[in-house]
């Protein structure tokens, strides 16, 4: 009876899931983690126009942090990132709550809020640039309506331009955040809301005390998605301001791209990529850790 074949079969059955996962995992290991190591190596090399594997230690990092541009990029990311995340969440939540009020035309409105996510900034960039341009866009139009004194020239003011980037970014992502919150709202047990109503809570109180605290998972997802989009934002800036006026809208992502590919300072670009990765890891790792540990319940 005790032939080996059933045991072997069983063992194969046990290993099959791992075998199925293996190709994907291998791809990710090589193409993501392998490349991260590769980039790390480049960041410690003397590479300029093409990869050169000559050890230079932390020279590129020193040069990186000596760049006023890099500091500008970090500062801009702080401004842009916080505005983008906070306003997207506030707006997305507001829209989701409004849409959740048994709106008859919800089926029409939802795709309207959602569609910007479907468009790339390569596509909408020009429209936005016109729209924000004081000479041609909104300012011009409003003046045309008779408000001669109206000014909206943030796009061309170095101190304000980063806010226009935030506006366009919020336009693009807030609908998606709305969808996440709406899904969260729809998932809340209706009996709980009824209970709160019977307990005497007003609609406002129900949202403040019950609904919004219950949307915690949706908040978390939204923050993660937005944070990584903020850090990765690239075409947004390129299409809208090209990093200008001056370097007023430089972000780490544009910085990395230009140093790697147009300024022939690949080592510095790679160093900035490493710093960005560390920033992302600082956000993601605690989140992943808590998320995956919680499952043990």
């Amino acid at each position, binding site marked *: 009876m005790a032939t080996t074949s059933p045991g072997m079969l069983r063992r194969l059955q046990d290993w099959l899931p791992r075998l199925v996962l293996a190709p994907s995992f291998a791809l990710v290991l090589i193409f993501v983690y392998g490349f991260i190591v590769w980039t790390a190596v480049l960041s410690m090399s003397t590479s*300029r*126009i*093409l*990869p050169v594997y000559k050890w230079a230690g932390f020279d590129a990092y020193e*040069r990186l942090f*000596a*760049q*006023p*541009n890099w500091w500008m990029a970090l500062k801009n990311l702080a401004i842009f990132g916080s505005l983008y995340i906070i306003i997207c969440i506030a707006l997305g939540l507001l829209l989701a709550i409004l849409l959740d009020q048994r709106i008859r035309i919800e089926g029409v409105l939802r795709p309207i809020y959602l569609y910007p996510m479907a468009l790339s900034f390569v596509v909408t960039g020009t429209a936005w*640039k016109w729209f924000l*341009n*004081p*000479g*041609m866009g909104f300012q011009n139009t409003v003046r045309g309506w008779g408000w001669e004194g109206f000014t909206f*020239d943030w*796009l*061309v003011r*170095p101190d304000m*331009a980063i806010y226009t980037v935030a506006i366009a970014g919020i336009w693009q992502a807030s609908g998606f955040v709305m969808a996440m919150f709406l899904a969260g709202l729809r998932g809340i047990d209706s009996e709980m809301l009824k209970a709160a109503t019977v307990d005497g809570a007003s609609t406002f109180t129900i949202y403040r005390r019950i609904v919004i605290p219950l949307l915690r998972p949706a908040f978390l997802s939204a923050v993660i998605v937005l944070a990584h989009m903020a850090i990765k934002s690239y075409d947004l800036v390129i299409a*809208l*301001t*090209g*990093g*200008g*006026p*001056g*370097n*007023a809208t430089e972000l780490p992502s544009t910085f990395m*791209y*230009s140093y790697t*590919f*147009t*300024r*022939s*300072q690949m080592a510095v670009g790679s160093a900035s990529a490493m710093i960005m990765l560390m920033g992302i890891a600082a956000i993601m790792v605690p989140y992943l850790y808590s998320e995956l540990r919680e499952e043990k319940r």
Partner: protein
Amino acid sequence: EESVEVLHWWTAGGEAAALNVLKEDLASKGVGWSDMPVAGGSGVQAMTALRARVTAGDPPTAVQMLGFDIRDWAEMGVLGNLDDLAAEQGWAEVIPEAIQAFSKYDDHWIAAPVNVHSTNWLWINKAALDAAGAEPPEDMDGLFAMLDAFNEQGITPLAHGGQPWQDGTLWESVVLSRGGMDFYRQAVLDADADALGGDTMRQVFDDMSKLREYFDGSFSGRDWNLASAMVIEGQAGAQQMGDWAKGEFLSADQVPGEDFVCIRFPGTQGSILFNSDQFVMFDLGDDEKRSAQLKMAAAVEDPAFQVAFNTVKGSVPARTDVPDTDFDDCGKKGMADLVEAAAGGTLAGSLAHGHGQPSAVKEAVFDVVTQHLNGQITTDEALTRLPQAVAAAQ
């Protein structure tokens, strides 16, 4: 069948039509053409794509390239050698030395120059000029006077697009105007720290601040051709821009001398800041491909092509021996200026277009110039920061 794959960023109608001349010429010689256009701000995306291709070990046959980029790539040892063809066609005799400097590396020909653009031009709306009753200005003070006159007419005196390379183009013209060719060489080409932080440079930055006053409110981020359109339509009086701007005027059915006036940027007559588009041939290690490359290089240097291409593009031929009969007034002036400058030693590479310094330094200068122009830093800060940034980027 032989064929070439050409990476370039000439995607606009006129340029593409010009390239078509080359494509058909090659087709008649049995060489196929596979097009790889990558548009976008002076070839930024194209260079990214090129890096990817080269890194992948699969470079395109020929690549449009500018100035120091050619040198950088040659340094990597990935370019092919065109010495035989150059000797055969006598390139050395007909192509100005200053341009040869970029077409050759280690005394070997590695690129075939297509054209010569010069950047220190000023384009003036004729009607506005006439209304101001002024002659075309000859120096910076004359320029300011003219711009003041435009201001009084209620038009935007100087049309400008706030992009780093446009800011840089304006800046290098002012440098040339204020300091002359020697100062330009010292400050820009030699990156001399004293010159970059000195009094002449202070004057340049002051001029820049002053010019800034003549822009309209929404110059930031504007594409250069929109600025040209402002001059064409009379919304603006003048634009400082390279000779490719002429294409805009011509395609708007404007006639040089009647509707618009082209002059060297005030104070720079006799000197030229050039940039030259060249085709670089990558070393593909394959005889058949090499033969195609040579045929293409030969076709590029063919005088007929040089005329056909440059009349459309607005630039002047890279060869100085091409007849100017087919060119318009501005073109003729440009060709004459080139010959003169080449002979007189007042022909220098344009910084803003990659012929003055490697891209790292160029971008470092742009950083300072742009930030200064946009009021993010003062003139004093610019003067301290410029030498530092240039030194750091070297």
